């Protein structure tokens, strides 16, 4: 009986709450808000907020053309691989203190290292899919995508080291890689964005977000005007829709990671608020859960607006060597500054 219940619970996690349905809805909503905000910043009316949903369902209704030169299995399975990795990834990003009962080890199943690995898989899947078509545009696109991924990785790791060291110093010692401990720490001693030594790291992470998601100005790999959207050039119909969906979900993944790393303390505010309302027991837990999710989505929208939309509206696309140089000098320097400050006890 317990086994069946557990299986059902896992299925619910994967398919509904932090899993597929939640990712689908919130991811596409974020993408829609991003397009609308960019339009408003350019003094346009902009598409309806639900536009990415229309795009996705329209693509599902189109015919899928598989190029004669393509490896059919890889061509069709690559988009699903990327989507699956992102949905699994979302399971490991905590929503403040909401508990997922993942067997015995409830909260520390996966840490930042696993998230770093999983973040690579969507990029690998799009490279696989593009390479399987044999299109020269895809060839150019995938070499650029690999450089972008490499460029983003260094500052991302440095930021995570800085944050881990800051939290680890005050708790267990060493470097803390558990996201749950990082969130717990923030709920007791305030969000990390308020610590002076970590502000450069927060800025660096904010700059990594558009690079990881492949948004303007770091979208040289998918430049539609010069290389026909690169690796996606040969994709059509539902597989293309899944890639667009993965791109939207990646926005949610990166922004929610930012929220949990730097705004984790907001969860304590939610708990105080519910306590003030005089609720106790099960009702309080339910209200806290709902409010936590809402607050996280709201913060994700704010981070999207600042980190993705604003940057998109004010910049033009960079060349690939400029992207690499930018990440390995400016952004890495910011992250390194934080790391050094934290290491010397600030």
């Amino acid at each position, binding site marked *: 009986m317990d086994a069946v219940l557990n299986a059902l619970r896992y299925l619910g996690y994967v398919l509904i709450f932090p899993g597929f349905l939640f990712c689908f809805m919130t991811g596409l909503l974020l993408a829609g808000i991003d*397009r609308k905000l960019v*339009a408003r910043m*350019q*003094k*346009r*009316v*902009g*598409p*309806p907020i639900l*536009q990415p*949903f*229309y*795009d*996705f*369902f*329209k693509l*599902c*209704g*189109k*015919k*899928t*053309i598989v190029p004669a030169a393509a490896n059919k299995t890889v061509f069709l399975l690559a988009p699903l691989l990327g989507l699956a990795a992102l949905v699994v990834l979302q399971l490991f990003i905590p929503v403040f203190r909401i508990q997922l009962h993942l067997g015995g080890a409830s909260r520390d199943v996966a840490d930042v290292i696993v998230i770093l690995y999983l973040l690579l898989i969507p990029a690998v899947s799009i490279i696989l899919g593009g390479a399987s078509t044999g299109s020269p*545009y895809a060839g150019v696109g995938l070499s650029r995508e690999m450089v972008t991924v490499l460029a983003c990785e260094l500052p991302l790791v440095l930021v995570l080291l800085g944050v881990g060291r800051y939290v680890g110093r005050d708790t267990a010692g060493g470097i803390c890689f558990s996201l749950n401990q990082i969130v717990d720490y923030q709920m007791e001693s305030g969000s990390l964005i308020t610590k002076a030594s970590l502000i450069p790291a927060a800025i660096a992470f904010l700059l990594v977000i558009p690079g990881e998601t492949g948004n303007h100005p770091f979208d040289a790999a998918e*430049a*539609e*005007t010069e*290389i*026909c*959207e690169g690796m*996606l*050039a*040969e*994709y*059509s*119909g539902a597989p*293309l829709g899944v890639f667009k969906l993965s791109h939207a979900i990646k926005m949610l993944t990166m922004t929610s990671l930012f929220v949990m790393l730097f705004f984790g303390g907001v969860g304590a505010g939610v708990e105080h608020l519910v306590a003030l309302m005089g609720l106790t027991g099960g009702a309080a837990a339910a209200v806290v859960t709902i409010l936590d999710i809402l607050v996280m989505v709201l913060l994700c929208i704010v981070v999207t607006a600042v980190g993705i939309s604003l940057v998109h509206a004010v910049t033009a696309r960079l060349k690939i060597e400029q992207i690499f140089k930018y990440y390995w000098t400016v952004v890495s320097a910011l992250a390194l500054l934080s790391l050094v400050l934290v290491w010397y006890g600030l």
Partner: protein
Amino acid sequence: MFKKLIAESTGKSPWLFHINAGSCNGCDIELVSVLTPRYDAERLGFKLTGSPRHADIVVVTGPVTEQSLNRVLRSIEQVPDPKCIVTMGSCPQSGNVFRGSYSVAGPLSKYVHVDVDVAGCTPKPEAVIDGLYLATQILAQKRKEMKK
């Protein structure tokens, strides 16, 4: 429910692919102006794509020269169904001032079924948006017929 969502969405998310078939560049610029802040066709969901495989609506400009004919037809074949073909300007429709020239193979309607013609040299952005909007409705209609 899934089918209903697809039917609902087909007309609301038309992605454009633009083919220049020997145009003088006048219509090409005018098409881009449709997407600028002043006319903002993106509010209807229009988006310019880089690959014919992503497109729903193919916009052809220019009188379809002998040089470009084969490439135009091959590009149009690569657009997955349901698709719509819109000609922009008088050139692909009738040949305009280039009619009868030794190097012009047009009009386009000799070779493929054209859904919407937007006439003018060059057409006003309002006319272009109107023509494209008509194309989205034809697109939704085609999707319905495709299922039968």
